[in-house]
């Protein structure tokens, strides 16, 4: 059993560079001993690099694929990098299906849906945390249980309701059923309850009503948590698939993931892979950019409640 000393102890340099690689000597090796260094690479860096590569390479392959010519894809001989990288596939995708429109639809649905959801989460959480009401606990449990009901199970009933109301192929039909938000409410309520009560009481003495307290005190001091909720909501709305898939049939109203399904159906053969990869880039890269810039908030939001 090799004892691997964490790299934090590297300042304690020892001079065992010439230590024989005999098994019995390993334990006495210093942190920079050859055995330890090898072990750190074998059990630390190697798996880390391997895992990172396994995650990153398919995404890189997607981007490269979207820049290839069809002839570079329809071949048994692997073409690693395109000879003449071009954005043709993106243009081509636009002629098969109105991809600009899909992008716009996704943006509209995400912006409107996420804004309303965040707003509802803030108001509900504020009321649950600070406004007096007899059945608060009941309403909180009502929210908590909703958190565990999967939206997928509600597919047929919601489809029938929205279709009856004339919501097929409309923006509101896509947005409305997902607007109720238990996740954001729960996260924000927990945060609001942790705020120092003195601040709110001070505002109260200054004669502030609930709306002033909400807008002038609670929201400004809670921006990081609200940002967390907003980002997670935006990403979820953007990626949302099953409901928009069911409720839209007209390409003019489809969101990007639904339109890509359509594109895959009509472009079955291998020569269309660059086009499909261009589509995949358009749905994945915006989220990747947001994630790269603000991953701290997103990870915190998605792993909230797990480690308690």
């Amino acid at each position, binding site marked *: 059993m090799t004892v691997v000393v964490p*790299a934090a102890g590297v300042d304690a340099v020892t001079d065992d560079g010439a230590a024989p690689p005999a098994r019995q000597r390993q334990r006495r090796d210093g942190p920079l001993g050859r055995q330890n260094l090898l072990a750190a690479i074998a059990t*630390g860096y190697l798996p880390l690099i391997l*895992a990172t590569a396994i995650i990153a390479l398919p995404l890189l392959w997607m981007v490269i694929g979207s820049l290839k010519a069809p002839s570079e894809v329809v071949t*048994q001989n692997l073409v690693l990098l395109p000879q003449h990288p071009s954005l043709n596939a993106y243009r081509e995708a636009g002629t098969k299906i109105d991809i600009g429109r899909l992008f716009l639809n996704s943006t509209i649905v995400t912006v409107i849906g996420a804004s309303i959801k965040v707003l509802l989460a803030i108001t509900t959480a504020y009321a649950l945390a600070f406004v007096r009401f007899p059945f608060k606990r009941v309403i909180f449990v009502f929210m908590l249980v909703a958190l565990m009901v999967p939206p997928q199970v509600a597919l047929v009933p919601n489809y029938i*309701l929205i279709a009856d109301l004339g919501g097929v192929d409309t923006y509101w039909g896509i947005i409305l059923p997902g607007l109720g938000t238990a996740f954001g409410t729960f996260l924000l309520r927990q945060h609001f309850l942790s705020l120092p009560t003195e601040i709110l*009481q001070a505002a109260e003495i200054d004669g502030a009503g609930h709306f002033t307290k909400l807008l002038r005190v609670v929201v400004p001091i809670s921006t990081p948590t609200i940002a967390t909720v907003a980002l997670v909501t935006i990403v979820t709305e953007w990626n949302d698939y099953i409901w928009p898939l069911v409720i839209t049939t007209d390409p003019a109203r489809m969101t990007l993931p639904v339109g890509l399904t359509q594109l895959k159906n009509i472009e079955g053969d291998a020569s269309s892979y660059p086009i499909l990869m261009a589509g995949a880039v358009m749905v994945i890269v915006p989220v990747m950019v947001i994630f790269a810039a603000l991953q701290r908030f997103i990870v915190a939001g998605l792993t909230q409640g797990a*480690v308690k």
Partner: protein
Amino acid sequence: MSVTVADAESAGPGSSRTRSARRAADPPPRQKPAGRRRTAELLSARSRRDFPIFLLLVLPNVLLIAAFTYRPLLTNIYYSTLNWTLGSPTASKVGLGNYREFFTDPESLQVLWTTAIFTVATVGGAMILGLGLATVLNRPLRGRTFARATIFAPFVLSGVGIGLVWVFIFDPVTGLLGAIIRGFGGTSPQWFNDPKLALTMVIIVYIWKNTGYCAVIYLAAMQAVPADLVEAAAIDGAGRVRTFFSVVLPLLSPTTFFLLLTSILNSLQAFDLIRIMTPLGNGTTTLMYDAYLQAFGGYNRAGYSAAVATILFGILLVMTVVQLTLLERKVHYS
């Protein structure tokens, strides 16, 4: 801070102000007030003035959740007793007929089997790999922050986009994987035609997408493991492996339990990858996908789909109840 507030409050007139001053002086301000005081508070004119505000703030969200989350659970049960074609104005009552059909049809038994394999494989795979990655990420290696973010990323990316990327890789003729296998002198398996391989493929991609989530949650739990316990084990002569299995892993058990149940719930609801990678559900039709296919995959069987969805919900409900009762017990473990 609280002193100033209390001072200012007591200077102010009015009974409600003095009451809140008393509350401000209470050291744990968020505790449930005693029963009698609570009733008095609720009856006071001031709190009654709050009721409309409360409703205004809460009702839109509550109504939306009632209409689109709770109502469907009930209507689903009703629809599941109907023989009803989606879009048709008429439906006939069949009682438990849809359920009887589900549980006697060999195809739906296949669906249950597929669901079980998919769930066990994805949950087991993502959790074991996640745990392994977390132990690596927990060491002070260079670049681990970057690696952590990269590994987590697929979890937040569109399942449709990810599915397309992997179709491009798995394609037996033009795909990257096939080219690599040919490079070693083999021939690519027919991932999309063979039902067993199709299921394997979707499982691999699902694990790829979700391992980072398990890893990050395990990592956070590992960082909360007291260092002195690990040191004590080392002093007692335990090696790294022994320390991990005898000290760290037991301390992670609440996290393992949490991940196990949330992952099972997520896997039972998996849809995006299955839909985009294997549209016909050849070998990959789980309960969730069956519920979708029956209603929206060309059969238009709304009643039968509702029955499948209700069965799925029943399973999810049992899992959730198990989670709430057992997890509660486990959380107080350490």
